[in-house]
């Protein structure tokens, strides 16, 4: 199998000062008092590889580092230690939330062009995909209304439709399927299954263990920023559930 993502000894830490105090006064006062920075380690020495076509599920409790790991793979966060190597010829689409690149005041159609440009598509390429996007999203005439007037379901359908119509090689999903109603989830699941069968590499974060067990080829369980267990989905999910029962 061809290796598409390699994570080598990745560590990420958040500076409490950076996230809480941004004033010049606090910084100068900290310097004067020689106060040391306080860190929270979101990821500690994480290493693993992902092969082309794999579907990886990331599980763990809140704050375990799942979303941080997705952001590291997406290149949004530069780790302080370690390396992330993503096959440069692969188109990576991070769906860390639905509607990245969307502007509330723009219409659905305008947002498709803007978000498409963000993903590196030309106007012509987006135009060619527009019918497919509208058809999947089922929003009809609303395509020319500002997205701020959409219901959350319509917004989610359009965003998911656009992101998946772009034909990524690597898709990162962060709990996005918890947004819509059951019809939307069923429709998205069907599309994702189709994409998985077509050989796309998917890494998803979800608290829905049953969904992950049925969809993934491997589960990675994160705890306190470290990999606790990884392997065959059912085995990892059972071990995770067991821990939950004990607590």
């Amino acid at each position, binding site marked *: 199998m061809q290796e598409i993502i390699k994570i080598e000894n990745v560590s990420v830490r958040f500076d409490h000062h950076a996230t809480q105090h941004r004033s010049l006064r606090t*910084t100068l006062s900290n310097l004067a008092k020689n106060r040391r920075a306080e860190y929270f380690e979101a990821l500690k020495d994480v290493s693993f590889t992902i092969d082309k076509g794999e579907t990886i599920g990331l599980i763990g409790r809140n704050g375990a580092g799942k979303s941080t790991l997705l952001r590291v793979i997406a290149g949004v966060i530069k780790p302080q230690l370690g390396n992330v190597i993503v096959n440069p010829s692969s188109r990576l689409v*991070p769906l860390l939330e639905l509607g990245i690149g969307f502007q509330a005041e723009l219409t659905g159609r305008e947002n498709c062009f803007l978000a498409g440009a963000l993903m590196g598509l030309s106007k012509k390429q987006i135009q060619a995909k527009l019918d497919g996007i509208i058809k999947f999203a089922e929003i009809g005439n609303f395509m020319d209304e500002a997205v701020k007037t959409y219901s959350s379901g319509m917004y989610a359908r359009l965003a998911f439709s656009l992101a998946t119509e772009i034909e990524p090689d690597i898709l990162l999903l962060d709990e996005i399927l918890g947004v819509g109603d059951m019809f939307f989830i069923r429709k998205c699941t069907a599309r994702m299954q189709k994409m998985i069968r077509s050989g796309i590499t998917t890494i998803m974060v979800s608290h829905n263990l049953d969904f992950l067990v049925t969809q993934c080829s491997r589960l990675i369980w994160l705890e306190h920023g470290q990999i606790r267990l990884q392997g065959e989905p059912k085995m990892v999910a059972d071990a995770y559930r067991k821990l939950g029962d004990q607590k």
Partner: protein
Amino acid sequence: MLIHFKNLNWGFLKAYAFTQIKLRYRHTTLGILWNVLEPVLYLGTLSLVFSAINRMELSDYVVYLFSALVPWRYFEATILGVMESIIAGEWLLKKLAISYFIFPLTRWLIAAIDFFCAFAVVLVILAFVKPIWTIHIFILPVSIFITSAAALGIGMLLAVAYTFFRDIKPLATTGLMLTFFSAPILFKADSMPMGSLQSELLVYHPVTYFAALFQKPLYYNCLPSLLDWQVTAGIASVFLGLGIWALHHFTPRFYFYL
């Protein structure tokens, strides 16, 4: 460092800048026409008020004022826009791996479009008001280029500082206001008494030289002096270099401060 420019998504930069301009006038009756009307109204009001204060003939004062005020407004808008760009780009920068140069450049592009609209209006007005036109105006593209580079560089440096320290914004706004009122834009440098402290200080005022890049070809019908070029090009090179370096150097830390 050049990798940032190589990896820049120019398609998105262009689409985003034009979207922002379109959104600005979306629910107005006159739409994009405001981009031309707004500077006309602003400059017209300012000309009437300050020609009276400076006791200058309106047609003469209009040429003097417009020649440096419009570039100053562009300079100021670029610096303030670029300064806020990283913080304002949080909605995207925390969710997508995108070059941090995108947002400063988008703000600069928006300011540049506004400037060209206003400058076109000024040239039309001056065509009626100004009695003599000389070939010296063909140097203006170089003046615009140097002014753009300086503003972009200063803006990028402030954008880095503003990301880490939110106190920078009021300081920068006040600094720009002081710079504007102390520079020979609203008043003429030669209206100061010869040898006075004010006229001596103007020699050390950097905006005196930037203003000269526009005032000399448009108002005084001559080319900017070698000193004007040296000072402005020097300032522009230093700040642009520092701005690009700072943005490149501090990029990995931005995520934690947004």
